[in-house]
């Protein structure tokens, strides 16, 4: 199976959705389900080939540095699996009746965002990376306005920040092309060592601003709380579980594979630490559950970037595992929270009182998600948090370890507050009944438990991935075929 089908098929199906929208009300949803399921199957079928050696696909049969190529290695494969499965589960969640939502447009944009995110992970050419980032960004701009009324102002803030980021990204591409002469990632990686150091610093700074908006790092994440709280829960789950993985993947490709060993990791650590602490402190004060989860997402992204930028194999492995776990747990949290807020019709935490008993499945899902992010044993969050703390202590970065411990304490405080409200307070508002949310919640909870008890297989793969990332000669040789 050719990896280019991972981008082509969702695009094809999303172009046909407006034609068939009139047939049946649920028809667009069914098409989205079929398309994401096909993507999951194609990704799984690539598993054996990629595990032995990376897969390089030439598009249009043009020789490598002159045409565009797609590149699938173990890191890309893991990201693709996580993204496809999570999008499939979110698409199942979207099957419930939303009433006034325009199903055809919503599902078209959803599938196009998914195709763009697949493109970000597969591509091997920096201008192509820019085009796919723009596809994912514009599809999410439209998705952020779907709720009408208040969501327009949040979406406008998002669009302005996204445009500034895309201008900076294009500036970085212009400088890179003029000095190195090619747009292919492997060629740039080979010649990046010969660049003038001040030029290298400027290019990496521009790229940090350009890609940091998708990865939700400090000055570029001012759009996150507004957009997350004022859009539909299916959209927010896509943002926090899927789009952030693509953002962090793009940052890894740029900072470790292309411009590796540039000595700029200290900036990433500082920005990650600021994001982490600010996110946790502001999350503690929220009484709107979606904003609380949004600030918690920002903080987790900060944690992942801080840990990854410490530049050693063990910390990179721990950071990637934390990213994977965060995606699974956050999607679980948002789906459960979506059911509960729709049932009582309000977003405030105190209105969710007592729902743990009235809606047992959703309440259980939320509790498992919270316990996972807090780091309770037997869940996957525990394994990754322990790895992070062990490795930062091992590298003798005591300040960062203390910061992470402080952040974990604050997290435990506000998540326990919500779980307590769910189970131990009395219900005072009316509860509407919905059809059960069994499938996504159960699959995600079971995965969380499985990864918590048997994490070894995933950790082994991540170990190989991390050592490959820190030494980019494998990337260059597999594409350009020997130096």
């Amino acid at each position, binding site marked *: 199976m*050719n990896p*280019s089908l991972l981008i*082509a098929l969702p*695009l*094809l199906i999303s*172009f*046909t959705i*407006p*034609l068939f929208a009139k047939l049946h009300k649920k028809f667009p949803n069914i098409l989205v389900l079929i398309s994401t399921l096909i993507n999951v199957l194609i990704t799984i079928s690539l598993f054996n080939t990629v595990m032995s050696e990376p897969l390089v*696909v*030439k*598009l*249009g*049969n*043009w*020789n490598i*540095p*002159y*045409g*565009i190529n797609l590149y699938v290695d173990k890191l890309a494969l893991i990201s693709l699996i996580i993204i496809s499965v999570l999008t499939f589960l979110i698409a199942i969640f979207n099957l419930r009746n939303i009433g006034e939502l*325009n199903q055809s*447009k919503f599902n*078209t*944009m959803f599938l*196009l965002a998914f195709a763009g995110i697949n*493109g970000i992970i597969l*591509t091997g050419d920096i*201008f*192509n990376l820019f*085009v*796919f980032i*723009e*596809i994912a960004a*514009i*599809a999410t*701009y*439209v998705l952020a*306005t*779907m709720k009408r009324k208040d969501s327009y102002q949040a979406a406008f803030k998002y669009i302005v920040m996204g445009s500034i980021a895309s201008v900076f990204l294009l500036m970085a591409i212009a*400088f890179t*092309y*003029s*000095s*190195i*002469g*090619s*747009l*292919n990632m492997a060629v740039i990686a080979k*010649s990046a060592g*010969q*660049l*003038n*150091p*001040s*030029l290298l*610093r*400027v*290019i990496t*700074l*521009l790229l940090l601003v350009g890609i940091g908006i998708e990865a939700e790092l400090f000055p570029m994440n001012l759009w996150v709380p507004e957009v997350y709280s004022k859009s539909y829960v299916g959209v927010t789950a896509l943002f926090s579980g899927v789009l952030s993985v693509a953002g962090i993947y793009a940052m890894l490709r740029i900072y470790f594979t292309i411009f590796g060993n540039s000595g700029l990791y200290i900036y990433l650590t500082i920005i990650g630490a600021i994001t982490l602490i600010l996110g946790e402190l502001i999350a503690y004060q929220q009484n709107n559950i979606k904003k609380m989860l949004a600030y918690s997402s920002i903080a987790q992204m900060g944690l992942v970037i801080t840990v990854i930028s410490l530049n050693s194999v063990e910390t990179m492995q721990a950071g990637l595992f934390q990213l994977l776990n965060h995606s699974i747990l956050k999607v679980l949290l948002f789906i459960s929270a979506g059911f509960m807020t729709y049932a009582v019709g309000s977003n405030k935490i105190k209105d969710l009182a007592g729902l743990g008993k009235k809606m047992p499945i959703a309440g259980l899902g939320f509790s498992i998600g919270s316990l996972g992010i807090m780091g309770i044993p037997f869940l996957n969050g525990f394994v990754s948090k322990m790895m992070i703390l062990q490795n930062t202590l091992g590298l003798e970065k005591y300040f960062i370890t203390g910061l992470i411990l402080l952040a974990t304490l604050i997290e435990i405080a506000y998540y326990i507050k919500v779980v307590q409200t769910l189970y131990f307070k009395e219900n005072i508002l009316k509860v509407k009944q919905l059809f059960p949310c069994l499938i996504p919640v159960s699959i995600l909870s079971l995965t969380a438990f499985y990864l918590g008890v048997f994490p070894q297989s995933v950790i082994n793969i991540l170990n190989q991935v991390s050592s490959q990332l820190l030494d980019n000669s494998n990337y260059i040789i597999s594409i350009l075929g020997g130096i």
Partner: protein
Amino acid sequence: MRFRDYLSLFLVIILGFIIFQAFDGTIDNGLNIKQFGEVNLSERTSIHYINKDVNNESTQIIYNESKNPESGSANYVTSIIANYRALDTLGEITVLFIAAAGLAFVLGDHNKNNAFASDASFIVKIGVKILFPLLFLLGIYIIIHGHLTPGGGFQGGAVIATAILLKFLAYKDYKLNHTGLTILESFAGISFLIIGLIGLYTDGSFLTNFLANGTIGTLFSAGVIPIIYILIGIKVGAELSGIISNLINA
């Protein structure tokens, strides 16, 4: 307010200093941004696009005489867009599709009163009656000759949308059939992807050029490139007209 203006000015000036630091090109320090106009083309990948020898041995390329070269279009920019880097073009038409569909969703086709209070004057109406078919024809000419002259699908599509804008300016109640536009857009997008997939199944990779290349410089040359450009022209024309119609009728 004034404090925030000064802070932004300070931030922008600092950013300017940082960016201009990238140009301090002392030669000994490694690769640098080249001076304006002093680019050596053989150091960049474009030399292979110009000599058309990305896959084969290099031969002399002569206008109106070379038969079946690697990429048969006389316009180098067209051959890059529609042949060597066709995935970027696919991404671009997707972006335009998202923008047109998103705009139609946000503005909700109200069909309220138009932006203008009455029809334009008599001279404007007669002028538009003369100009509209000529502009339309010019747009179609630019699209079809995209591989021979400067131009192509995007430029021709914009000219066609301008022709339709003229009709909006002249007549107060001019309306477009949005269902027809949606069908045209989707049909053009699906055809582009099907051409790519046919390339996948006959030649083994997505978006290959599977038709014969012909002689450089004649109208029926360059394989699948004119077909791609006609599809792009239809799509861009339909989408920009839809955007204009939605903005005027909002």
